[in-house]
C-alpha cells in the first residue's frame, strides 16, 4: 500500500536581485555587513500538510506560481524541504518533464537507454520494454537516427512512450499530455488512462479543469504556497473558478 504524508512542508528559495553571488561580493560582504540585502527569501511552499492514501487521485490546481510544481518536485525529491517532513511509501515515478535528459546527438535507441537509466529503469527492464516503446512511438524507421533530426512530434512521441512504459506505484504528473497528431493523441490518452488506473496513487498538476474533474477524486487548491482548499473535485474546481474561498 502506498502512502504519502506531508507535514508542515515549507520550501524556501533565495532570490538574488541583481546577479549570481560572486567571490568578490562574498568577500566584500564579510567586510561590510550592511550590504546584506542582495537577496530575499521566497517561500514557494509554506506550511503545507496533507496525507494521500492508496486509491487517491489527486489534482492540484491554482494560479501560476502558486507552488504546485514545486510541491510535486519536492515529492520527487528534486527539492529538499527547508522545513517540515515528507514521507513517501512506494516507488514514485518522476514524470515531471518528459524528455528531460534526452541527448540530441544520441540516436532514439541510445536515448531510450540513457533517459531510461535516468528514470530509474534497469538495463534488463529497458531491453524488455525497448521494442514496445519503439512501436508505440511509431519510430521504427528513425530509431537509429540522432534525435536532433527528429521533428517535435517524433521527439515528444518517443519521450512520452518511454516515460509511460513502466507502471509505478505513485504517479506524479505535471501537465503532461503528449503532443503529436490526432491519432497519436488518442492512443496516448488511452495509455495515460491505463497508467493512471494501475497506479496506486496519482497526483497531477493541471490547468485543464475538465481533465482534473474527470481523472481525480480529490482536488487540492493551492494559492501563494499554501493549501487553501482540499476536497471533492466538483466543489473545489467550482469555487476556484468563481474565485470564492468559502463556498
Amino acid at each position, binding site marked *: 500500500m502506498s502512502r504519502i504524508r506531508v507535514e508542515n512542508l515549507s520550501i524556501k*528559495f533565495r532570490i538574488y536581485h541583481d546577479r549570481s553571488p*560572486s*567571490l568578490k561580493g562574498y568577500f566584500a560582504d564579510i567586510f561590510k555587513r550592511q550590504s546584506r540585502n542582495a537577496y530575499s527569501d521566497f517561500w514557494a511552499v509554506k506550511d503545507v500538510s496533507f496525507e494521500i492514501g492508496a486509491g487517491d487521485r489527486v489534482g492540484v490546481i491554482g494560479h501560476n506560481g502558486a507552488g504546485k510544481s514545486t510541491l510535486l518536485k519536492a515529492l520527487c525529491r528534486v527539492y529538499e524541504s527547508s522545513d517540515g517532513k515528507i514521507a513517501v511509501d512506494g516507488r514514485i515515478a518522476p514524470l515531471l*518533464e518528459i524528455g528531460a535528459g534526452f541527448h540530441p546527438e544520441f540516436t532514439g535507441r541510445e536515448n531510450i537507454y540513457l533517459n531510461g537509466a*535516468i528514470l530509474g529503469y*534497469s538495463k534488463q527492464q529497458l531491453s524488455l520494454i525497448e521494442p514496445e516503446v519503439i512501436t508505440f512511438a511509431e519510430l521504427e524507421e528513425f530509431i537509429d537516427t540522432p534525435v536532433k533530426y527528429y521533428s517535435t512530434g517524433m521527439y515528444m512521441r518517443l519521450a512520452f512512450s518511454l516515460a509511460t512504459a513502466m507502471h509505478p506505484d505513485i504517479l506524479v504528473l505535471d501537465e503532461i499530455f503528449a503532443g503529436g497528431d490526432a491519432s497519436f493523441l488518442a492512443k496516448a490518452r488511452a495509455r495515460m488512462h491505463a497508467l493512471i488506473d494501475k497506479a496506486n496513487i496519482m497526483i497531477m498538476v493541471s490547468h485543464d479543469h475538465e481533465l482534473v474533474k474527470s481523472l481525480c477524486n480529490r482536488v487540492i487548491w493551492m494559492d501563494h504556497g499554501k493549501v487553501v482548499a482540499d476536497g471533492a473535485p466538483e466543489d473545489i474546481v467550482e469555487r476556484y473558478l468563481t474565485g470564492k474561498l468559502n463556498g
Partner: protein
Amino acid sequence: MKANARSFFRELYDSRNVLLQLVSQQLILRYRRTALGYLWTLINPLLMMSVMALVFATLFKADLKTFAVFLFAGMIPWNFFSAVVTQCGASFINNEGLIKKIYLPKVIFPLSITFALLIDSALSFLALITIIIVIGGSLSWAVLFIPIAYILLFFFALGIGLITSVATVFFRDLQHVILIAMQGLFFLTPILYKHDALAGKVAWLIGLNPIVPFIELFRAPLYQSSLPNVSIIVQGLLLSLSAMSIGALVFLRHEKTIVFRL
C-alpha cells in the same frame, strides 16, 4: 552519520546504471561523426606532448628520447588532474536541466567525469608505453606500480573535483579562476623541469605544491625505472586521504542546497 553513509552508498549503487550511461556519454559523444572517433582522445595529448618534448628538449639541450619519457611521465598525471578539477567544476552547471527536473544522487555528475577521464588517461598511458618501447626506451618491472599511482591520484583528483564542483555553483567566477590557477600551477609543478631545478626564492612554492608527490609516483617507475620512495608514497596516500575527506565533507554539506543555486 553511519546510517547516512550507508544510504549514500546504497543510493549510489542503485544509480550505477545512470553512472555508466553518463560515463559512456562522456567518452563517446565528443567524437561523434569524426573519422578517427575515439582515437582523438589519444592523438590529441600525444601530439601536444610531442611538440612540447621537441621544443623543450632543444631549449634545455637534452636528449630528445630521454626528455620525451621524462615529460610524458609527468604530463599524464598532470593532464588527468587538471582535467578532473576543471571539468568537475562545470559538472553541476552543465547538468542544470537534469538536476532541476529529476532527482539523481548529485555525486554521479563529478564521479562520472572522473571515471571517464581516468579511462582516457589510462588509454593514453598505454599509448605512451607503446611509444616508449618503439623509440627504444626500456621498461622495468617498476611499471607495475603505475596502477597504485593511478588509484592514489584518482582519489586525490576526485576529492579536489568534489570541492570545485560544489564551489562553482555558489561562486560562478570560480570557473574562470580555476582555469587560470591550473595554468599557473602547471608551471609551478616540476613537469617540464626536474624537481630541484627551480631553486631560489620560489623553491618553497614547489615544496607546498600538493601535486608534486603524484608526479613523482608516475615518474619514478617510468623515468627512473625504480619504485618511488616510501616517503613519497606515504605523502601521496595522506594527500589523497585528506583531499577525499575534505571533498566528501564539503560535498555532503552542500549537496542539498545545490539545486536551489543553479
